[in-house]
């Protein structure tokens, strides 16, 4: 499995580049706050990749996307963290 910190990962492959946010080691609710800031700064259609290892992130990131009308494109699980790809909607 291609690790997330390389240019081959999802967002770059699709041609829609976007930032990586490394929120590993940050406890809830910081990963969601990091994501919210990154999406606010992104263009519609742009994708953001966030890494998190907080146990609540797996539930809270999808919940945030639902509450804020944003698109959770992909979730990749690794040994000690997960990567969430979120696309800013219009």
């Amino acid at each position, binding site marked *: 499995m291609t690790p997330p910190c390389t240019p081959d990962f999802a967002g770059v492959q699709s041609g829609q580049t976007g930032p990586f946010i490394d929120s590993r080691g940050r*406890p*809830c*609710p*910081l990963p*969601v*706050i990091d994501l*919210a*800031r990154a999406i606010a700064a992104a263009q519609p259609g742009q994708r953001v990749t966030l890494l998190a290892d*907080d*146990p*609540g992130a*797996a*539930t*809270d990131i*999808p*919940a*945030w996307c639902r*509450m804020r009308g944003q698109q959770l494109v992909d979730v990749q699980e690794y040994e000690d963290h997960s990567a969430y790809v979120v696309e800013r909607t219009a």
Partner: protein
Amino acid sequence: MYLDVASAAPWHPRALAAFSQVAEGFPGDPGRVHESGRRASDLLERARGAVAEELGGAPEGVVFTGGGTESIHLAVVGTAMVNRTRPRRIISSAVEHSAVLAAADRAAALYDHEHVVVGVDLDGRVRTEHLAELLAEGGAALVNVQHANHEVGTLQPLSAVARLCRQADALLHVDACQTAGRIDVDLGELGADYLSISAAKFGGGRGTGALLTSPRARLAAVTTGDERERHRRAGLQNLPGIAALAETLATLRPRSVSGEAAKRATVTDQVRRHLRTQLPGLVADLAIHGPTEETLPHILAFSALYVEGQALVSALDSQGFEVHSGSSCATTSGEPSHVLVAMHALTHGHVRVSFDDRFTLTDSEAFMRALARAVTTERARVQI
């Protein structure tokens, strides 16, 4: 204001009175044949009869325990221990109280059963179609589905669950700790084989509970050493606690539409609905958990984006409002509430309020203002 009755309800005045009267007046061991023993035994059996009457079971099916958790373990582990004829499988809803899940994990490990968890919908209701599939494919010895959820209040679709269990010849254990003494709970009408209750959850005291069993229930004692409670639970019975539990149930009369329990439920439900409708207008980015209808009258849970549940609990506590949070920062395990996770609900910034009829509409307005201030302060701190 104490808004955590779902963790521990204040003692009903009748519970306190019964407890001290019996502690003082009935010192004997109900298992003995002397005068003190016979008086104690008579009292014990009267209490047993009263509990059976309030909760729809037979007196001989009532086992007194040290609380809801013990009742749950007796039902689940006790059944697995003697299961010879049914499939070696226990099915639990994903939103059961942790005592149920822990008991089922223990039963699985110690007595060679499989423990399977069945998911819930976004309101926290068990997915009955998934339960039906599980039962059809392999059956079960025991199915655990609570009467209503302790964290968000959702009432479970028990008549559908009971029908599925009956068809599959699986025993049904209903954790009624949050409903006994509050709404009508009837072992037979629910179609349950086991009903676990806790005095501490309805104001009937502390350290006392009961397990009601149907005639077809089959279990062995988890706590052994004597023949008490018809060989289902050893240990000198806590007579003052049992009297308090029974007296409180009989006073609350949850089966009666004009009883004390029903009146309290009407009042608390009004406040719950008021909170539910007003909160979203007062606090932005707030998700209220569970359905508006088909839910317990005395519980409301919600999560606020971008804030820590523990910080809200502390801020509210300093304003005189005592609440509970299931956010990972607030739990002893460091994991978020498994109920919220199963419901795909926002786990951070979570607060559960649970209250009795002393929490008025005016009080609820003051609470909402305090909550709004706390959320604003916390969001300002992280600048979002």
